[in-house]
């Protein structure tokens, strides 16, 4: 019994609406849960002083600084590498068994647990390369962790750019690099920003890999060679060692608000850039 199209349309759209509502309810529940438990702990002292008494008192300033620097290092390394790899795989090589294997490898590595990335970072960056526990070791490890996602999302975004644009640009006397830089990448920007934002989200929220590489020292990092504790790791230690759940959720609340701010700013910038162009 085939429903008339009008009816299936109404039925399906309400189903999709229900799914979106459910997702938003879960999202709101998670945020309210954290903010309700965390907001009371937040005041200027909490944000701008060093932790005292194992984190049971004082503020979380060093973790704030680390939570900004670490994803920056990770993205500063993973974004150019990832985008260049994706451009190389889509624009500069023909679709072949090799490119399919690289894509498959990237997909599989996107599934490797972060603990194994942490151990690799610990043995390779911390011990063998003698970088010690530092934001640099952590940044490099996180860069490797988010690389597969950035490569794959950038590739999909580039493949979505209509071929006609490439032909027009080429026919106007542009080299392959010019075509890529002036037409392909600007049009693939939304996909690329999504990949980078997922990478930032993942590196801000990561704990296991970061503890083994960036370490968990509570001191304020003076340079990228110092070990430091991100807000996620701080929440991890406070909550799991049972030191203080108020401070733990206070940290989580600050973390959520900063991630939301970063997301909104990034999308604001991107949308302004797109509106100006097309």
């Amino acid at each position, binding site marked *: 019994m085939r429903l008339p199209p009008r009816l299936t349309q109404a039925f399906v759209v309400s189903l999709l609406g229900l799914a979106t509502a459910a997702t938003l309810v879960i999202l709101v529940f998670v945020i309210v849960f954290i903010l309700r438990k965390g907001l009371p702990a937040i005041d200027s002292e909490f944000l701008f002083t060093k932790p005292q008494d194992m984190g049971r008192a004082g503020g979380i300033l060093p973790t704030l600084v680390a939570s900004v620097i670490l994803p920056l290092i990770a993205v500063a390394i993973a974004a150019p590498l990832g985008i260049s790899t994706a451009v190389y795989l889509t624009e500069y090589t*023909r*679709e072949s068994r090799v490119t399919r294997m690289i894509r498959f490898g990237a997909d599989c590595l996107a599934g490797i647990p972060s603990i194994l990335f942490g151990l690799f970072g610990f043995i390779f960056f911390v011990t063998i390369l003698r970088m010690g526990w530092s934001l640099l070791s952590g940044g490099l490890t996180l860069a490797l962790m988010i690389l597969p996602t950035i490569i794959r999302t950038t590739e999909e975004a580039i493949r979505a750019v209509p071929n*006609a*644009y*490439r*032909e*027009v*640009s*080429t*026919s*106007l*006397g*542009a*080299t392959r690099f*010019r075509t890529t830089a*002036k*037409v392909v990448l600007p*049009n693939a920007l939304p996909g690329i920003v999504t990949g980078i934002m997922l990478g930032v989200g993942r590196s801000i929220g990561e704990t296991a890999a970061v503890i083994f590489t960036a370490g968990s020292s509570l001191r304020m990092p003076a340079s990228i060679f110092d070990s430091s504790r991100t807000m996620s790791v701080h929440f991890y230690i406070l909550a799991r060692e049972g030191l203080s759940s108020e401070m733990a959720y206070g940290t989580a609340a600050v973390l959520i608000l900063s991630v939301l701010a970063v997301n909104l700013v990034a999308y604001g910038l991107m949308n302004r850039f797109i509106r100006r*162009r*097309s």
Partner: protein
Amino acid sequence: MPVKFSIQRLSTYYGSVQALRSLSMDVAPNRILGIIGPAGSGKTSFLRTLNRLNDLLPDFRAEGRVLLDGVDINGPDTDPVLLRRRVGMVFAMPVPLPMSIYENLVYGPKLTGIRDYQRLGEIVEKSLRAAFLWDEVKDRLNLPALRLSGGQQQRLCLARTLALSPEVILLDEPSSGLDPISTARIEEALAELKSAYTIILVTNNTKQASRVADETAFFLMGELIEIGPTEKIFTAPKDRRTEDYVTGRFG
């Protein structure tokens, strides 16, 4: 008789499929050459070989020689990028780049290194006037090009190619999907441009060829059947297949 393009036994292949079969012809400068023939006769493939746009296709291969002013464009010392600046192309479906009208027009010139704002402005005006589009867009150049109508977009693409000040202009069925007025506008522009450029117009609209082209070539199944002055081709074609096509008995 001076020659712009001299094509000698040109054959093209997409992987194993052969498009053109050992085609030879000469193209005179500063005239309009019309190319007619049924769909799939290799007209577009031929056009895209002249500015080496087929290089973008991974499994494309060309044999034979294509001389532009005596130099083989597939030869080692021809840089395809410079070639495309001399041989501009307008596509069948208008494809404005997702930028403003101004940025579409200065896209080509900027690639050649022209930075001076004043000079770019002149180029924009000259090419828009040549494409009979200047009056309609002169005060909204920052509008995104995608907002223009179909006819306007096609004339923008023509203007964009003219902005490169190429020597040859290739047109791949420029008026397919255009209303008669826009089509007339394009044909007017071509007649005007003939004096300064060599124009090769591919069209499956035989009347357009008869109206605009000086010489006409008839392609069929990847072969050049006949080439000659337009009146002769349309009134007294040598080959029976040309006659059948021109009189509309098939194709």
